[in-house]
């Protein structure tokens, strides 16, 4: 199990009778950015806690660079730097003092602090107390702390949560360049699909504790059939008409997504709706993106249930 930064087999975690994570076989390749997706309660955080050795698996195992987290936590943890909670810092201390605590515990040289501060562009604010930091600065400091000791794997749990647009852009730029700049694999959980799409090379999608998609993002997006987005005067009636005509439709708010990729099908759908007395406001092809994939998969799961 040494070819992957993170590899789990049959991984499960049960709390009482409920499986929070069940039979998860995930592979995050070395050198990439793995976007770990799923709605709240899907099992992402539980998986990350298993990955960091904060929880013990109820079934299966999880390895970091080949080290079994349960059997050899210290060796596995040496490969990992984690950003879990932006506020998990000591507010009475300065940014530099906070980093120094982790540096001392990891027995690293003092120069390591300046290196990581440089990496997240935080040198100027390092000597201010954390009580005066914005959330974005805290996130960057948390990332700097995770980078202490040049870990081979950076685990970032919702690194863009709560950030303003500027903060999101800054964080995205930093994360995107991490594999190249510091040589680390990034494992990042998020429910901000557009951000993951812009940063990740691979994705995994959790749903009800199970991993339902796992692979390179480009391959995943190829799974989506082209979709036509239809805005009409009566979405309900439009769905009925198109279903009757044999089309697969997904209601996405006031918009109807129709599995149809060709231009002539767009023309046919337009004609069908007009003939049925439904006014068509907009017809457009949707680019295959992560959001479309996410909606499509969630829809399939809901239908299967």
């Amino acid at each position, binding site marked *: 199990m040494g070819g992957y930064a993170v590899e789990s087999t049959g991984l499960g975690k049960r709390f009482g009778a409920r499986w929070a994570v069940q039979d998860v076989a995930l592979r995050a390749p070395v050198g990439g950015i793995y976007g770990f997706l799923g709605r709240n309660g899907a099992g992402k955080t539980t998986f990350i*806690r298993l990955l*960091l050795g*904060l*929880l013990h698996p109820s079934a299966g195992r999880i390895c970091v660079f080949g080290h079994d987290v349960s059997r050899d936590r210290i060796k596995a*943890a040496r490969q990992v730097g984690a950003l879990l909670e932006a506020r998990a*810092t*000591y507010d009475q201390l300065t940014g530099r003092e906070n980093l120094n*605590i982790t540096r001392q*515990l990891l027995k690293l040289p003092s120069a390591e602090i300046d290196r990581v501060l440089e990496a997240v562009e935080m040198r100027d604010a390092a000597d201010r107390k954390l009580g005066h930091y914005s959330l974005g600065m805290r996130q960057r400091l948390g990332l700097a702390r995770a980078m202490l000791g040049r870990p081979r794997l950076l685990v970032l749990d919702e690194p863009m949560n709560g950030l303003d647009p500027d903060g999101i852009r800054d964080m995205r730029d930093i994360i995107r360049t991490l594999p190249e700049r510091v040589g680390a694999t990034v494992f990042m959980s998020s429910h901000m699909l557009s951000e993951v799409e812009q940063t990740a090379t691979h994705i995994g999608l959790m749903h009800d504790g199970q991993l339902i998609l796992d692979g390179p993002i480009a391959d995943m997006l190829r799974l989506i059939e082209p979709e036509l987005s239809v805005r009409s005067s009566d979405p309900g009636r439009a769905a009925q008409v198109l279903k009757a005509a044999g089309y697969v439709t997904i209601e996405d708010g006031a918009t109807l997504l129709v599995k149809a990729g060709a231009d002539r099908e767009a023309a046919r759908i337009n004609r069908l709706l007009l003939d049925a007395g439904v006014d068509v406001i907009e017809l457009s092809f949707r680019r295959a993106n992560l959001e479309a994939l996410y909606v499509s998969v969630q829809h399939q799961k809901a239908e299967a249930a």
Partner: protein
Amino acid sequence: MWTSINVEYRKLKGSLIWLLALVAPSLVTVLVTLIALRRPRMDWEFMFTGSTGLWAFFVLPMTVTALSALLANIEHAPRAWDHMFALPIQRWRMFASKAVILMSVVGVMTALLAVELWVVGALFAAFTPATAPQGEFPWPLALRILGMMWATSLFMAMIQLWVALRFRSFIAPLTIGLGGTFVAVAAFNAKEAMFVPWAMPVSIVGAEGVNALPAFQLGLVGGVITLLAMIVHMSRREA
């Protein structure tokens, strides 16, 4: 291990712990000074025993309760446990370091009490010799009694620390601390008081010291066992 202790010490910067460590023994000193003003020329030994009784009876257990809660809260408040537990270090070191810091602060307070009492005596001798405590400051007695009290308080301190580390809320350690102190006060005159961890330190000076040695032994042994149990439990617990 030294690194972990040093890190724990650094985390105390800006916390209320040092203020508490200064105020708690000073409170006893102020009270004793007021008593000394009303009862001039007290015997030093009597004055010292009274002071340490006051210290062990109420101030020490309440201070240990507050200190342990503050120490645990350094990690609870910012939810820092996950970060600490994810690091490649043995978890037992973190808990052992917290215990070392707690007992060190209790030690500093105990020493401060002795020094403050000596200073009060010196001030009396310098400014109002007629009312100063009689004789020399009983350093050998002070070292023996305060040293035994400090060691005996290990049992109570480890129980308090365990509860404070286990529960995020202040309520749990506060309830245990208040409850323990109340039981200690209520059982003070009973023979069995020396079996109550919160009453053990006062047994060092209470009942003319007949329970001093068994209380000291119980406190020390119970404290070490509780410390080990806490470390095993907290290290194995899922974060």
